[in-house]
């Protein structure tokens, strides 16, 4: 058994099927992935994402440290603002991706909350401490992963649904995407952010570990598991750590992964010097839509005229589109939208077309 989220018992009681993910035992589905997926696209669903890591950086040099840890611009963030960035090594290879939130100042100093992927918390903390030491910075680094629970509420009705249980203070309706605020949710003090991993409107709520159940139970919408979270993110072309990038098995830069918008080369992040001349890489992540029957899966080959030109990093039958979709790294001659390729499904080539992501208009 892996690490258990604060809602572990509750998930068990309601019969959720669980899976090991990033070292955590997490619900993969409560009902049916298709039903959970549809709830989020059409109304709202709630996800226990307490397996995500939390790293808190604060102190006089918190900004100087955080901007070295992530590829996005940290300096311009005001309290209550957020940005998405890559975490890269000194070769520019992606180790992780994370949202960075600037929370209200603490003791007159900036306070940043980073959300590394599940199971990356120790590594992210160690790395932050190393960077701090290298540059002699004055900031504290806290691995707060087991101090916070995290619940995502996503879907067109999600923000209203959460606003209904906000018992004090903030007007969530006034938040734009990538803005956040402290709010009292069912009388629990939470950090509520207009962020998510589904392409829908909604919020992510970071709450005290022990109060996660209070927040969860107050949210009147179907619980959704990691299965639907994966199909929802894949329809948007969002990256999944371990699938689209992995420093050991799939070393990719942010430019290869297509998150150019998350890289500010004017900032001093680790990996910046290697990436400055790598902004137009040979391979880039692209979407594929299969034109015939078949379900593309991780690792399946992408072929052009029978020759291997890449492989699928993630694939599924899109519940929203009813068509098979995939992501794959493709080199320059094969990556233009509209290019005809094939995906080898159990030995047989299935026709496919290169498309831009997201697969859905959102």
């Amino acid at each position, binding site marked *: 058994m892996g690490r258990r989220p604060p809602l572990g018992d509750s998930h068990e009681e309601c019969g959720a099927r669980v899976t090991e993910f990033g070292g955590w035992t997490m619900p*993969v*589905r409560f009902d*049916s*992935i*298709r039903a959970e997926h549809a709830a989020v696209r059409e109304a709202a669903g709630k996800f226990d994402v307490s397996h995500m890591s939390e790293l808190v950086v604060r102190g006089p040099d918190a900004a100087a440290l955080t901007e070295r840890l992530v590829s996005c611009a940290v300096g311009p963030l005001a309290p209550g603002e957020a940005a998405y960035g890559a975490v890269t090594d000194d070769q520019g290879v992606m180790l992780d991706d994370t949202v960075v939130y600037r929370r209200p100042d603490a003791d007159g100093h900036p306070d940043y909350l980073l959300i590394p992927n599940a199971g990356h918390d120790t590594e992210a903390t160690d790395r932050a401490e190393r960077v701090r030491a290298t540059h002699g910075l004055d900031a504290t680094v806290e691995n707060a992963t087991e101090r916070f629970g995290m619940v995502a509420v996503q879907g067109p009705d999600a923000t209203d649904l959460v606003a209904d249980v906000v018992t004090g203070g903030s007007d969530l309706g006034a938040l734009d995407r990538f803005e956040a605020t402290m709010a009292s949710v069912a009388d629990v003090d939470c950090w509520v952010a207009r962020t998510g991993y589904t392409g829908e409107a909604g919020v992510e709520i970071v709450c005290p570990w022990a109060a996660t159940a209070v927040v969860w139970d107050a949210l009147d919408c179907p619980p959704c598991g990691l*299965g639907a979270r994966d*199909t929802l993110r894949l329809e948007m072309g969002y990256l999944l750590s371990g699938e689209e990038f992995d420093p050991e098995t799939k070393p990719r830069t942010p430019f290869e992964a297509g998150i150019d918008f998350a890289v500010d080369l004017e900032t001093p992040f680790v990996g910046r010097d290697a990436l400055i001349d790598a902004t137009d890489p040979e391979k880039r992540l692209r979407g594929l839509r299969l034109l015939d*029957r*078949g*379900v593309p*899966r991780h690792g399946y080959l992408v072929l052009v005229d029978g020759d291997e030109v890449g492989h699928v990093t993630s694939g*599924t*039958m899109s*519940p929203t589109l009813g068509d098979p979709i995939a992501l794959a790294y493709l080199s320059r001659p094969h990556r233009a939208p509209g290019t005809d390729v094939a995906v080898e499904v*159990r030995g047989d080539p299935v026709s496919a077309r290169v498309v831009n992501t997201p697969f859905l208009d959102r």
Partner: protein
Amino acid sequence: MTIDYPDDLLYRDSHEWLTTDEPRRVGVSDFAQDELGDVVFVELPEPGDPLAAGDAFGVIESIKAVSDLYSPVDGEVVAANEALFDRPELVNEDPYGDGWLLKVEVATEGDLLSAEDYQGLVA
């Protein structure tokens, strides 16, 4: 949700069922469809194709999983349920009815279990 194990069917330990009356049909059990979750793709053989008991004859895929289908009989395919090509979810909705996979001509049955024994195996 309760799982059904109709007692007029025979079962393979790999979760396929076989009718005992004509026309002989093959499908996957309620237990199997529940374990798989939403079925999104089914690959089936064509009429006339031979079947060998215990050999893979097709593939069933849910959103998360890919599983081989194993033949409960030696024999031949009479028909494949083409409705599943457009509506694979029929396997979830009605695994012993509209979600059937094949009609088969049975030469010899493989090693099959009663409903009670199958339920004892999986439940």
